[in-house]
């Protein structure tokens, strides 16, 4: 989000405005009131006597509410107004805006306040692509107390109702003629409602509609229910609390599905994303395990069942992205849902196992046996597109499918060392790691819950075979590193990237190769001082402000830190956690999805990535996973074990009230200068 923007959100309803509270959408300024992937207001500009008021201050008090303190301008460079205007906006199904005008002088004032309104009903894809080509008809009408801005295309109808009982209404906005007495005040309230011809969309909206009190209760509840973190590093505490609140804000109720799961990120990704929801749920397991339960259920219910080239759907595949805007409704985009993801399917299996390890909820593992088996079949069958034993991807939908179907899904992310792009299909290294891990984990599930020892043995055999081949085929002896990918011609894509850190997490790396991987990760070429860059400095495609070719992604680093811990590199893991958590301070303790890859010693502060989403679910989840990693929290049988390795910023770290199959325990860790017996999990005292 742009620093000049103010955003408030509630699930997939959000408003992006300037610091006055005005909405003025343009191709370069993605302002608007967005609901269900549609922009219901593209213009909402307030004037007093024809002039825009000056900004005194603004605050996004709650994630769903913002206040703007304004002074009607005198037209000069000085703000010397005897009037002030408070504008408060609260999200509803649309939003409610309260306006209070105050006269601080001893003479009466007559003024005209106007709000100019317009709605382009752009699909979010049109906003992203800055290309608006509406095929339906717009209309406007004035009702007794409200202005209707509407759009119709066949049976698809979307309307914005601007309800302003005290105003005079015309087709382009509402006007108030106000007389303010000396030291007097005047106030009014407008409501912006969104209306949809889809009964299910409407119903979904009503179900998720919460009152202000309910929302505040939800935040209070989220903070109260989440384990309590205590530490002598105040920045970490603030980042943790911000994460818990943002996770509550990002809750999204998908259409035709039970429950809620985290949407991926504001503003572009307020939708169900298989990969993002899975990773976020995994990051949050020690803190909010119920996220994983819903994510697994929703994704299982929408698992692919057929080969559908348009949607890149295949039997057993887990979805990539689901949208409910106009372009999806008319199949101009394949997101109903779209399945172009090579990693969501193994990640689904990994989360299923990890969820059971933490919660002991074997019932869910039994309920999802069929979807899990179908996902495992996909790994062997459709996932292995090149028939070489590796998961690879090549879009079936050449028109609007994704070129890259790994987490680095921008067009230029899979490049050779000389900067040229890899051919298709592409088998990315981290996806092979996930596939290995998924099979190993599902072997445990097959043995323990599905009572199928023969299947478990087959899975372990396939995993072992994959590990052996992978360490041979992806290893680049001359660079002492794993290749980013193998392309359609069987060539190693030889750039050095952060993907190798995910390999450590999955456990696919042979122990003799792990030190080389770690050396790369911690080298100045990959490690910026804040975190591991997505691509190493010096590679042909490297760009410190390239989305997936040089920026630093907090979620990526949280997975790398977990991987380093798995292979015993605790100091390195703590160094990465510390770097990213220190960076959080510069982002008001809310980590963005990515920031620039400039070296820390050069800039002294982390440089914003221009169009990063914030809040973004897996960036929000990153601090949670870092806390788990720093404390070395691991479920082992019915116990939670603690083996802390803390960075110099803190002497101690404690998480109180970690729920799981062990009941509720407190986990305490101290720096290694203190004897290790201080690290422990202990039953939480009954309150």
């Amino acid at each position, binding site marked *: 989000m742009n620093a000049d923007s103010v955003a408030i959100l509630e699930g997939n309803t959000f408003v992006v405005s300037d610091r006055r509270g005005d909405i003025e959408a343009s191709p370069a300024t993605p302002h608007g009131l967005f609901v269900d992937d549609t922009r219901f207001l593209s213009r909402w500009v307030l004037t007093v006597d024809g002039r825009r008021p000056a900004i005194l201050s603004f605050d996004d008090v709650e994630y769903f509410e913002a206040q703007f303190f304004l002074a009607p301008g005198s037209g000069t460079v000085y703000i010397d107004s005897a009037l002030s205007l408070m504008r408060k906006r609260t999200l509803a199904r649309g939003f409610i805006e309260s306006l209070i005008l105050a006269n601080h002088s001893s003479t009466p004032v007559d003024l005209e306040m106007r709000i100019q309104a317009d709605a382009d009903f752009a699909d979010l894809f049109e906003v992203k692509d800055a290309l608006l080509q509406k095929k339906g008809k717009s209309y406007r009408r004035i009702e007794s107390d409200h202005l209707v801005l509407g759009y119709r295309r066949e049976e698809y109808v979307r309307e914005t109702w601007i309800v302003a009982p005290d105003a005079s209404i015309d087709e382009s906005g509402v006007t108030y003629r106000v007389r303010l007495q000396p030291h007097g005040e005047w106030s009014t309230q407008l409501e912006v409602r969104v209306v949809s011809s889809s009964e299910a969309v409407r119903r979904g909206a009503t179900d998720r509609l919460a009152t202000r009190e309910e929302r505040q209760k939800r935040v209070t509840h989220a903070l109260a229910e989440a384990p309590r973190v205590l530490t002598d590093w105040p920045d970490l505490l603030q980042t943790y609390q911000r994460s818990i609140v943002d996770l509550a804000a990002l809750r999204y109720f998908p259409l035709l599905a*039970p429950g809620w799961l985290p949407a991926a990120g504001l503003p572009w990704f307020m939708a169900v994303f298989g990969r993002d929801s899975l990773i976020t749920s995994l990051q949050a397991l020690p803190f909010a395990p119920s996220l994983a339960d819903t994510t697994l259920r929703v994704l299982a219910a929408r698992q692919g069942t057929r080969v559908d080239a*348009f949607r890149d759907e295949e039997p057993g595949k887990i979805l990539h992205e*689901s949208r409910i805007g106009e372009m999806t409704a008319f199949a101009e985009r394949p997101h109903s*849902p779209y399945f172009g993801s090579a990693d969501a399917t193994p990640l689904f299996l990994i989360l299923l196992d990890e969820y059971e390890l933490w919660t002991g909820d074997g019932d869910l593992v039994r309920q999802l046996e069929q979807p899990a088996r179908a996902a495992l079949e996909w790994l062997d069958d459709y996932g292995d597109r090149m028939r070489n034993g590796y998961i690879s991807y090549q879009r079936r939908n050449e028109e609007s499918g994704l070129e890259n179907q790994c987490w680095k899904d921008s067009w230029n992310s899979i490049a050779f060392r000389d900067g040229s792009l890899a051919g298709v299909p592409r088998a990315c290294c981290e996806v092979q790691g996930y596939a290995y891990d998924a099979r190993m984990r599902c072997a445990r599930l097959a043995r323990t819950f599905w009572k199928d020892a023969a299947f478990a043995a087959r899975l372990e055999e396939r995993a072992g075979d994959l590990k052996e081949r992978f360490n041979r085929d992806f290893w680049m002896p001359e660079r002492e590193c794993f290749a980013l990918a193998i392309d359609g011609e069987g060539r190693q894509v030889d750039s050095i990237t952060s993907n190798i850190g995910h390999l450590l997490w999955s456990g696919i790396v042979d122990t003799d190769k792990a030190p080389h991987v770690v050396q790369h990760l911690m080298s100045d070429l990959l490690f910026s001082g804040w975190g591991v860059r997505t691509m190493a400095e010096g590679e042909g495609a490297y760009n410190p402000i390239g989305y997936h070719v040089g920026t630093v992604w907090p979620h990526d680093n949280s997975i790398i830190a977990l991987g380093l811990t798995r292979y015993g590199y605790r100091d390195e893991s703590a160094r990465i956690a510390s770097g990213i958590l220190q960076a959080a301070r510069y982002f008001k303790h809310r980590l963005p999805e990515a920031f620039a890859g400039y070296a820390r010693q050069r800039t002294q502060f982390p440089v914003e990535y221009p169009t990063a989403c914030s809040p973004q679910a897996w960036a929000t989840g990153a601090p949670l996973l870092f806390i788990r990693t720093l404390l070395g929290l691991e479920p082992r049988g019915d116990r939670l074990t603690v083996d802390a390795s803390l960075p110099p910023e803190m002497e101690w770290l404690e998480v109180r009230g970690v729920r799981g199959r062990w009941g509720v325990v407190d986990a305490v860790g101290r720096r290694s200068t203190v004897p290790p017996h201080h690290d422990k999990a202990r039953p939480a005292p009954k309150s």
Partner: protein
Amino acid sequence: MPVGNARTCFEALARRGHEPRLADVVGTWEFDIQDVGTWTVAVDHGALSVTDNTRTRTADGARAPTTRLRLREDELVRLARGDRHENLFTGVIRGAIVIEGELAFAQRLQTILPLPDEQSAQT
């Protein structure tokens, strides 16, 4: 013969007999096809059965369907054939399909769509 109207759609559904991908599902979808009639499709652990409610008198006090879908006949045909990439989701977002009852159960219907035409069902 490809599915071309409501009757042929439900005949094609009835021919499915058993659908292994619905082995964990029990429930009923009632289709209210505007100006044509109503059909009930029941699934019991994968076994599918179709009842034409305009021909079969429903007993008083019969249980409400798990999900009821209201749509026009042309939308049903488009959905059944997957024309212009239509699926349950796109129909619902446009407002061409109205769903009452359990939304998540409605979603399972997509498992058996689009329907094969008569020719491909026989081959």
